[in-house]
């Protein structure tokens, strides 16, 4: 048993107070068992408590949210935070996630901050209602009640939540605002209502200092089923009469269909070729027949020729030649900074760049769709934004959203590419189900996913800093140039010529500024459309990817801070401390430096050299603030000049993210996010020639292997006075600058491009 709450939560909110706060409390004991309302139109009424929570007679709780689990642990965090507000055990809570016909709120799954507040508030409203019920039943004032593990005590009497509601309905009105996701041409990413319905009002929530469940390493609820093979993944959906499909994609990024290939009915008796405009597929009741027949048909399918891509080797030159026009977003005043730079004792400047990279999950896209003769659509998906997907599909099919039901299941992590409800195999599946009148399962191949899914665009950036006579930064101009990362269109809808969401050629500024002692700063983001946007397939469709914008812009900013520290002859940690007054950053930076046994000195190190035998070592640091969290990364690396090999030998990662919800899972997320960031830093590049993407398997799109993993130390700081920050996602944003700084420390050469492949390192060291 968990220690009972010492300081019981008591309501200070009167019935009138509830009304003032925007809610209304009705305790109706007249209706039978609680059930989620299922109003017409396949939607759940978010104003009704039973849509969110069912308290059952056995004192267990069923909670529903449109958010999903993407692998970082949200399902545990929701259970923990809801349990905290209700004073129940998290084990007593079961979650339904992401199903559009069974969950009330919708919303995207970009993190805990927006995802959990709805459930926390619903929990807080419910808690007050339950106290009121218990007060009436026990004839004890609410102020004299205490609750432990769902058992209400007062006046020497006890009643459980389950007993309180048995055979009755807790009829509580939940105040909400917002709208469901819908395709909206005025939105930058083509979708409004990203947050879905938001629970409003100000119910009394438990103070963080009184938390007993949040802050504990409650185990991830889904793991035992995943480990024993009981999980039903979205790739496992099987329906009666279901057909397996494999897609035949255009020969190039700009091709259109000339003629369908032939299907040998002798070899593939139950297979069928399907087509809608440039969307081509083979279906069969037998998966292996679908695969084999699709390969054969693809070989004889004819497409128009096209060669309009610049080639990845020419990416930087291509981006440099773009007329970027006015910035999409500006922070600060470029004129003020120009004046300050002109008055500085000296300036340093640098240009940074990175090629295209991609999400590259271990499981390629998969989806199952069942379109009924009356037009009703059901789709089984792993999209991280079910309501967004529902809106995208309804838009493509030109039907009301009520015609579409999206059911969510576990699948490979998506790392942001489904955040706007797009990308994915769902449109393929829906179109093929419409064409055949049968349920269709579409499994993309790895080669298809690595060639045709959305990408995180390549970019270039220019940064310039003015230093005073003491080497302190007095002004900074930071300009980022990048194709848009907001294209959420579903490939199937594009190729079939169906209506799609739109997106603007934006480039958003993602850095959260911590260097408040730099007096003059201007940041500008310049955007453009997709490369080859004019083609029927929409070109290289840019999309957000884990820690979007910020991980790229942090490489530039922190790269230059390291260059400036070296230029000033300063220790790079002390140099950062000299440019900020943010005590939260200072605390975690010092704690992480201590854990890494950091010895203050300037870079490069005393033994730095660019050539010669053997292996050189170096160390480097970087920091980042993101969504109320402060990150520090310290890399120790080994460079072999003769081969260009870079091995990260040790990495110390520090995080202060307000109240830590689950220390063990946070440790796992810090380490795993770091692996993804190091993978991007050392290895990843989407390559393409003039016609198509060429990095289409794991030997050509290389990611970090286990042997390349460094020794990792983590430092966690939890605070009760700063609310919640995001800890699950952003570790990948503090890798590249630290590794680049360590490379400089070892060699005396600043890398201003990632990935640090052996070929690039050899070139770099020869210059």
């Amino acid at each position, binding site marked *: 048993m968990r220690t009972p709450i010492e300081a019981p939560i008591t309501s200070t909110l009167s019935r009138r107070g509830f009304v003032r706060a925007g809610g209304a409390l009705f305790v109706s004991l007249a209706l039978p068992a609680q059930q989620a309302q299922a109003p017409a139109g396949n939607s759940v009424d978010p104003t009704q408590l039973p849509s969110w929570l069912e308290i059952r007679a056995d004192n267990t709780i069923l909670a529903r949210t449109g958010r999903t689990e*993407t*692998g*970082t*642990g949200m399902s545990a965090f929701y259970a923990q935070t809801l349990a905290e507000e209700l004073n129940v055990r998290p084990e007593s809570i079961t979650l339904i996630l992401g199903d559009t016909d069974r969950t009330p709120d919708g919303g995207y799954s970009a993190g805990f901050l927006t995802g959990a507040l709805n459930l926390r508030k619903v929990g807080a409203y419910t808690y007050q209602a339950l106290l009121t019920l218990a007060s009436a039943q026990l004839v004890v004032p609410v102020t004299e009640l205490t609750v432990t593990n769902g058992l209400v005590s007062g006046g020497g009497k006890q009643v459980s939540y389950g007993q309180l509601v048995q055979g009755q309905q807790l009829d509580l009105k939940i105040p909400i605002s917002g709208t469901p996701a819908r395709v909206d041409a005025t939105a930058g990413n083509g979708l409004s209502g990203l947050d879905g319905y938001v629970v409003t009002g100000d119910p009394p929530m438990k103070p963080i200092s009184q938390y007993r469940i949040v802050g504990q390493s409650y*185990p*991830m609820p*889904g*793991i*035992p089923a*995943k*480990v*024993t*093979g009981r*999980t*039903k*993944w979205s*790739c*496992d959906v099987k329906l009666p009469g279901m057909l397996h499909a494999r897609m035949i994609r255009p020969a190039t990024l700009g091709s259109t269909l000339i003629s369908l290939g032939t299907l040998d009915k002798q070899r593939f008796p139950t297979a069928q070729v399907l087509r809608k405009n440039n969307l081509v597929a083979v279906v069969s009741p*037998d*998966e*292996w027949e679908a695969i084999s027949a699709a390969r054969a048909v693809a070989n004889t399918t004819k497409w128009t020729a096209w060669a309009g891509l610049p080639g990845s080797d020419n990416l930087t030159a291509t981006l440099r030649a773009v007329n970027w026009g006015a910035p999409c977003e500006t922070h600060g005043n470029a004129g003020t900074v120009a004046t300050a730079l002109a008055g500085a004792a000296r300036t340093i400047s640098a240009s940074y760049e990175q090629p295209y990279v991609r999400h*590259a*999950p*271990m*499981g*390629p896209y998969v989806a199952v769709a069942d379109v009924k003769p009356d037009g009703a659509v059901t789709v089984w998906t792993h999209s991280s934004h079910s309501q967004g997907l529902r809106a995208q599909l309804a838009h493509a099919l030109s039907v009301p959203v009520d015609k579409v039901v999206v059911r969510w299941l*576990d*699948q*490979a*992590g998506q*790392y942001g590419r489904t955040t706007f409800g797009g990308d994915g195999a769902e449109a393929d599946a829906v179109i093929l189900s419409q064409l055949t009148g049968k349920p269709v399962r579409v*499994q993309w*191949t*790895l080669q298809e996913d690595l060639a045709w899914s959305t990408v995180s665009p390549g970019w270039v950036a220019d940064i310039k800093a003015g230093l005073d006579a003491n080497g302190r930064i007095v002004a900074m101009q930071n300009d980022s140039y990048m194709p848009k990362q907001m294209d959420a269109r579903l490939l199937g809808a594009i190729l079939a010529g169906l209506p799609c969401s739109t997106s603007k050629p934006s480039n958003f500024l993602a850095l959260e500024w911590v260097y408040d002692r730099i007096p003059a700063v201007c940041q500008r983001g310049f955007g453009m459309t997709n490369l080859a946007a004019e083609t029927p397939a929409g070109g290289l469709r840019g999309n957000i990817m884990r820690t979007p914008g910020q991980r790229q812009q942090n490489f530039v900013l922190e790269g230059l801070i390291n260059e400036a520290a070296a230029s000033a002859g300063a220790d790079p940690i002390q140099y950062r401390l000299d440019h900020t007054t943010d005590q939260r950053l200072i605390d975690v930076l010092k704690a992480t430096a201590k854990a890494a046994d950091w010895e203050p000195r300037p870079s490069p190190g005393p033994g730095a050299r660019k050539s010669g035998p053997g292996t050189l070592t170096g160390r480097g640091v970087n920091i980042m603030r993101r969504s109320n969290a402060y990150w520090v990364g310290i890399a120790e690396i080994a460079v072999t000049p003769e081969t260009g090999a870079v091995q990260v030998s040790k990495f110390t990662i520090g995080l202060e993210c307000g109240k830590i919800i689950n220390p*063990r*899972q946070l440790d*796992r*997320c810090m*380490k*795993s*996010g*770091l*692996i*993804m960031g190091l*993978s991007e830093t050392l290895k990843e590049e989407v390559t393409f020639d003039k016609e198509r993407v060429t990095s289409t*398997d*794991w*030997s050509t799109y290389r*990611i*970090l*292997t*286990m*042997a*390349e*993993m460094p020794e*990792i130390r983590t430092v966690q700081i939890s605070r009760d006075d700063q609310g919640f920050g995001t800890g699950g996602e952003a570790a990948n944003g503090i890798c590249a600058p630290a590794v680049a700084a360590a490379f400089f420390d070892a060699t005396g050469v600043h890398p201003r491009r990632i990935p640090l492949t052996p070929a690039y390192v050899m070139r770099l060291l020869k210059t």
Partner: protein
Amino acid sequence: MATKLAFTVNGAPRAIAAPPQTPLLYVLRNELNLTGPRFGCGVAQCGACAVLVDGHEVRSCVTPAGSVNGKHITTIEGLPALWAAGQPSAQTGTLHPVQQAWIDEQVPQCGYCQSGMMIAAVDLLSKNPNPTAAQVKDAFTNTPPSPHLCRCGTYAAIVDAVLLAARTMSTGKAG
């Protein structure tokens, strides 16, 4: 042309009719409803589809079903029975120590690759019951035909779990 094929799958004899060149992965998933092994790459480059054939890891996405005719196949669904078979005192329902370690070390994030990771761990521990962390990293990276890949980045947790499973298994054998 469909052919009759017979194997022992997770301890039980199973017979199916399929073209012998059908990859074992599709036979397991679609004919035998064993969804532990998953489609990752289809070209033996990632490990998500790994199963044990006569105790050794193979990539089921490139293994023709006809080539394993008459052999013993184990998926993660069969790991508890595999462990119990070698442990006369083991109780029914006990998970394989590798599975238990995967739970105890909280390894899976999305979890898509982890079936193959556990198969690789069982194979490794059958050859090297007491590996070092470096040997675990080496085995998961350099054993043909390819590294076992995880995009969530759970490698550190996997190393922890393999070392934990090795300790549990050696204790079990000693007992």
